[in-house]
């Protein structure tokens, strides 16, 4: 029994090393993507430009008078633009993180091949 188990575990371990790069671009990539989407959702929760857009004509701080409405509209517009830009930057950050995931193996291969071409000391 012990030998059988050991044999199976060791074979599994060897196969695992070959599966590792494949995993990186399949299941792993999906995992990374979902993680980035989660991060984006967190950003959206915080910046919430959609919520501001929905309330664009609702005066801020209960200022229902004419002037209040105009100031609120302008303020909200500015907020929406600002928040959208912030969210866009956040999105880019998420995308960069995802691409870093995708690029890591490529960079490693590039680094190794480059290293091998450098004369040894």
């Amino acid at each position: 029994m012990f030998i059988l188990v050991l044999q199976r575990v060791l074979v599994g371990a060897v196969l695992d090393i070959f599966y590792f790069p494949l995993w990186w671009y399949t299941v792993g990539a999906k995992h990374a993507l979902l993680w980035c989407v989660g991060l984006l959702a967190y950003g959206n929760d915080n910046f919430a430009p959609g919520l501001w857009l929905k309330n664009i004509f609702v005066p801020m701080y209960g200022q229902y008078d004419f002037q209040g409405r105009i100031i609120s509209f302008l303020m909200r517009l500015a907020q929406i633009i600002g928040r959208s830009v912030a969210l866009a930057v956040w999105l880019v950050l998420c995308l960069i993180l995802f691409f870093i995931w995708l690029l890591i193996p490529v960079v490693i291969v590039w680094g190794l091949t480059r290293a091998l071409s450098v004369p040894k000391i």
Partner: protein
Amino acid sequence: MMFEKKPPLDILACPSCKATGLIGFKKCAHCHGMSMGLSRRGQWQFWSYPLTRYNLALLNGRRIFNKIRRITAVVLWLNCWVWAGLFIYQTGAYKEFLFGPSAWLPALANLSATIQILFWLGVITLCYFWYRTITEKKAQGAVEKYDYDKKSADESTAGKTYSWGEALKLPRHKKRAIDSTFTDEAMAALAEAYGFADKNNYPTLDAYHLFYALLAFNRISNVFIRLGLPAKSIRDNIFQMMAKPAKSTAQNRASMPLLSPDLQQILFQAYEEAYQAHQDYVSVTELLVAVVAQSPEIQEFLYDLEVDKRKLANAVEWARIRERLYRQYIKYSRASSHRSKKGMDKAMTALATPYLNAFSEDLTLYAQLGRLDFAVARDREMEELFRIVEGGGQNVILVGVRGVGKRSIVEGLAERMAADDVPKRLQDKRLVRLSVSALLSGTTPTGAIERLRNILSEVRRARNVILFIHNIHELIGVSAGAGSSLDVADTLAEQLSGGEALTIATTATDEYARHIAGSSLSGVFTKLDVKEMEEDQAIQAVESRIGALEYKHQVFFSYDAVEKAVQMAARFTHENCLPGSALAIVSEAAAYARNKKGADSLVSAEEIAQVVSDKTGIPTTAIGADESGKLLKLEEAMHQRVIGQDEAVDLVANALRRARVEIRSKAKPIANFLFLGPTGVGKTELAKTIAAVYFGGEEKMVRLDMSEYQDKSGIYRLIGAPGEKGTGILTEAIRQHPFTLLLLDEIEKADPDILNIFLQVMDDGRLTDSAGRVVDFTNAIIIATSNAGTSYVQEQLHAGLSTEAIKERLLHGELKQYFRPEFLNRFDGIVLFKPLALADIKKIAKLMLKRVAADLDAKGIELVIGEAALDFLAQAGYDPDFGARPMRRVLQERVENQLAEMLLSGTLKRRDKVMVGGNGELSVI
């Protein structure tokens, strides 16, 4: 309460692989490794985790190997980078990096090949470690979400029966592997049970083995520790109970244990238990419940240890509550981190409310800061509240008796609002509690109304405020204007009826009836009744709060203690409701146990009983040897004071014994007795004796001379004047000392309407006083004495009739002049006290002289009484018509008067002996 066995599930087990999912080392071709399954709620639920020796060994091997693999990866990564760093240091290449960021790239390019290779190998091992960490964090499947619509439809749980061929063809979304919802701990318990059965050569894996294995897990042993049973000793007992496999049936090493049908049921029942209890995962606690429900032998075993179904269910729920509260705390505190702490909504449409803030507290903010408790076992009320809010109801009023938990429901709502776990209408809003005292302080009623108007107008403008007015009745009755024309209630009603802001209020049931039901406010609020918790719910509520108490007092509560606290609170404290009353008891018991037994001690049911006894005076603790001896010899103790009257003494002693061991109706007073008989035969004396012997002193008795209640107005003296609290002589006395003897002396003299009050007291053990409070008489013993029909009794006695016959005639004739039959019928015993005979009088004389002797003893003088003296005194004091009273007069005249003269004249001094002679004369010897 015995355990009930659930109806067996219709499990389809694969015949080819014998429900193991494997044939040899390969997946079974017949069931595709699904091993066993059943159709439930329109799904095919199956078990795909092979419980076989090889598979478990393999998984164990993998677990160990995975650890080694991850450690190796970390070591390799660190090695690579440490060596690379070392080489950089040795070659001096690091100096190039010091020129700033612009020099980094060329510096990197100039690094030697070895350093670069080491660096990149380090990156690879780090990535590999990352990969292993992600993949080993098994994505656990969750138990399907509880579907409220399906709960009543039983037929939905029993589904269509499939064959393996049909089951395999089902689409993926219709199949659910229940083993993926088992926590690692639950799986480890199964593996351990299997290992145990395998090691001991059992042919099948049975409920016993799993129970035995479960007891080794912390969470389960904690459940049993709460039940006062150390897991280790149960484990030893279970080990003894397990039948050893007979040699012939013992498997040889080639075969291995298979899952017994019972265990198959247990796996699927555990999943069902998790589903019914709204749990996300199947954990060891669900396995425990399923194992116990499946095995009658384990049930019998637990039953012998005084663990029944309800006890186990509540103890398991305790473990779950702790875990659930922890998870909820994490989830809610994460969710509430998005909220503004300045009272603003996300879209900033709200208005700051400085005026309101001066008179209120923000409950949602408190919830965010973690200052409120979770509301437990209040799902029904919460759902109803949501239904009213979603249905468009503007204002809700929670109505319930004091201490029932109205405020904690609202605080629970605040918790949910902070995490946005509420209907849309309540999302992104603040729940603000209006402080009535702040509103009313330092102002006139007109000022208060003005303040309220300002507050409500601010609430309306702010649009994100839900106002909470706790005890709204405190506001009502504050009136202003000529002839109190303007009331706060009217202002509130006017402002709230606009329907712009949502308000939640609470009030007590009696206050609702008094102040709100008939007022303008009743139309504004939708009423939501909050009922007192059932015992089980209250136990769970107490369990949820006990953690803080345990931490504060450094003690540990057993389940029995919690259960007893709730039961006793329900029985003995009527001022307050469950769970508030039980919480008061447990918190006192925690402090008591800490002081008595020190830190880290166990609070048992005995400490709870002690605290309740101290609070109420009712003996609730376990009966010790001393007390049981005393109870068994009650008659003897009573006869030391009461001469004769055996029937009455026996009756009372038996009633008290029944009461102490709780073999009696708990909805009635301990006993109701009517003592009949001529004057001076010992009726009142017996009552006094009971008070002294059992209730701890003659003064521990509520004595009402019913001759004082000869007209109807006496009712108000007994139960209090209408609207005035605490003025009823009877109700207040019993409310303050529920464990007492109530003596109604000369009851025949009371007005018949007053007797009607006692009809209810004697039947239901309760009486409502003038303020509407229910007073509990179930721990009192009621004794009424009466001289009614004395002359008739004496006539009949002279005529030579037996007391039994006289009693019969009295009940059916003479007594009806005084009492209605239904009144007489309420008594548990009616005793006719016998007239005293000369021999009795002699004994009484002896008793009375003993008291005189005790008085003299205090002065250092001894009293000697001879037999002749007793005979003489008994003769002198004997009068069959007047009982023992003439005896008292004789003693006064013949003995006490002489003694007083002798003491004053100085003929009797300290250390003297005085003797009562045969003719009653006194002489110093």
